[in-house]
């Protein structure tokens, strides 16, 4: 926005000012930024700030922090943080941890990669609603999954995978794993394979090459992938409602926020819960990024 005011100032009769500003990159072309920046300020930044100040103006009175007090004193609401973390962290860890060896092994397969990538994009584009609907049929008591297990005599009755923690966890893996895999393989393709060959000439075995050459270069990418996977899993909403137990074991924080804001019309409390949700995400991301800052940050010699 400083750019826009700068332009207005240069509209006057001081050509030298306009010159000086143009030298620093401020000229009338920056007006082209106006629609985009104004849009984001109006519909992204403003609602967030509005929600923040709204959360300090509780409907029923009781002081500035009354909404936050309600949230942290009501165990039904407070536990949503723990419930969501218990879903989100393991799901993100599993998705990232499974992606690394798979992407690492597959990085040499030139032919199959594009097909595989295209296939993996499918569950992401289909989204959680369809995944949930599919899971209802597939892992239900009469679904194919349990039928196969029964015919293999692995279980007697059926594995309860619906309307509990595991239903939501499965849906988070189905949509989250492809996402993590695609990011990790993008980061891997940015690491020059010559580095590994160099390690190989020095006598490093397969595991040593991965552990001491590739993984340290990949670690910053792993940190980012973990952050994005975690944020996705932490904001789980539709599948927690459809294949979870939204009033009990999967009463996640987004359900609590939605319930308060748009079902009880307690906008301030809803905003407060949304702010808590954002804060928890920031804390986790902050921890991961702090760890990332201790890692090697130089060139990885690849195209990335």
């Amino acid at each position, binding site marked *: 926005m400083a750019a826009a005011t700068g332009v207005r100032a240069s509209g006057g009769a001081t050509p030298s000012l306009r010159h000086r500003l143009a030298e620093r990159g401020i000229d009338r072309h920056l007006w082209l930024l106006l629609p985009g920046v104004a849009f984001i300020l109006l*519909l992204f930044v403003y609602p967030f700030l509005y929600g923040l100040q709204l959360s300090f103006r509780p409907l029923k009175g009781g002081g500035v922090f009354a909404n936050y007090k309600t949230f942290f004193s009501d165990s039904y609401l407070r536990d949503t943080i723990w419930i969501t973390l218990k879903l989100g962290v393991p799901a993100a860890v599993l998705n990232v941890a499974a992606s690394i060896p798979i992407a690492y092994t597959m990085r040499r397969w030139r032919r199959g990669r594009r097909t595989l990538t295209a296939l993996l994009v499918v569950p992401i*584009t289909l989204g959680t609603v369809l995944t949930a609907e599919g899971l209802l049929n597939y892992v239900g008591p009469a679904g194919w999954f349990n039928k196969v297990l029964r015919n293999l005599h692995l279980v007697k009755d059926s594995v309860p995978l619906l309307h509990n923690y595991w239903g939501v966890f499965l849906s988070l893996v*189905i949509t989250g794993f492809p996402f993590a895999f695609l990011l990790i393989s993008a980061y891997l393709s940015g690491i020059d394979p010559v580095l590994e060959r160099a390690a190989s000439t020095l006598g490093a075995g397969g595991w040593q090459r991965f552990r001491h050459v590739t993984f340290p270069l990949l670690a910053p990418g792993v940190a980012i992938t973990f952050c994005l996977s975690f944020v996705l899993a932490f*904001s789980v909403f539709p599948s927690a409602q459809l294949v979870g137990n939204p009033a009990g074991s999967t009463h996640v924080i987004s359900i609590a926020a939605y319930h308060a804001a*748009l079902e009880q019309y307690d906008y301030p409390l809803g905003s407060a819960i949304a702010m808590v949700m954002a804060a928890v995400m920031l804390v986790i991301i902050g921890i991961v990024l702090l760890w990332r800052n201790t890692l090697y940050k130089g060139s990885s010699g690849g195209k990335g």
Partner: protein
Amino acid sequence: MATMTPVATTAPSGDQPRARRRIVARPVTWIVWAVVAFFFVNLLGVVMSVVVDSFGKSWFGTWLPSGFTTHWYGDAWSEFGLHQVLWVTAEVALSVVVISVLIGAPTAYVLARRDFPLKKVVLLLFLLPILVPPITYGIPLAIVLYKAHLAGHLTGVILANLVPSVPFVVLTMTPFIEQIDPKIEAAARMCGANTWAVMIRVLAPLVVPGLLAAGILVLIRTVGMFELTFLTAGPTSQTLVVALYSAVFSAGIRAQQSIDAMAVIYTGSMLVLLLIALRFVNPTQLVTRVREEPTA
């Protein structure tokens, strides 16, 4: 495994010199194959059980339904008012594509070509709506839109869906414009073209592929966007995915098969869009556009 094991030792020498990696296949490779295969088998199971059920007459505890029929599609079409739902979906998606390209393209141009104070801040401003999950900013956004009496009908749905779409267009198109040689613009200016003429007659034809890519990606993301539409839609402004959610959520009222039929219609339209998109763009672009900033 830590010792040196030359890969080609056990490969049959002579007949197929190129295929040595395949044949040796260390245990790790087998495990990776198995995990990937297991994932895809289950994914296929999830999708196919919806498709099969939507064509089934009745299906109780057997491997396949007792007979096949297509009448659930007709039922779904009338019960869920799919005619209107599809129309709304198309309206929302196309408006979002057009508006976000109109807003995003000029911004992408400036970000690609200019260096100015606070550029990092502006970039961050466009990165945040993509990185922050929609449900987090969606609730305050929905509150603001409800207070402004915009939510509950089409305008609110379109506005809400624009929030992640505009930054997405900006971040998809910026690298695309960066790789167009600025000398072409300089040449046009030297020949006397003003900014407007440069934009319309020189740049626009060159960025058409980038526009198409950004447009189709936004289209897919908008059709599949559940959270923002769900938070702002009223009864007459539901898109397909939200209608599907409502149907699944209130399961038991309608026949499961007609819900599945709607799910198949949704899947089908997404797959068609996906096939179109894959002709224009790199699949990873569908997921995210995060690039490592050199300073980060």
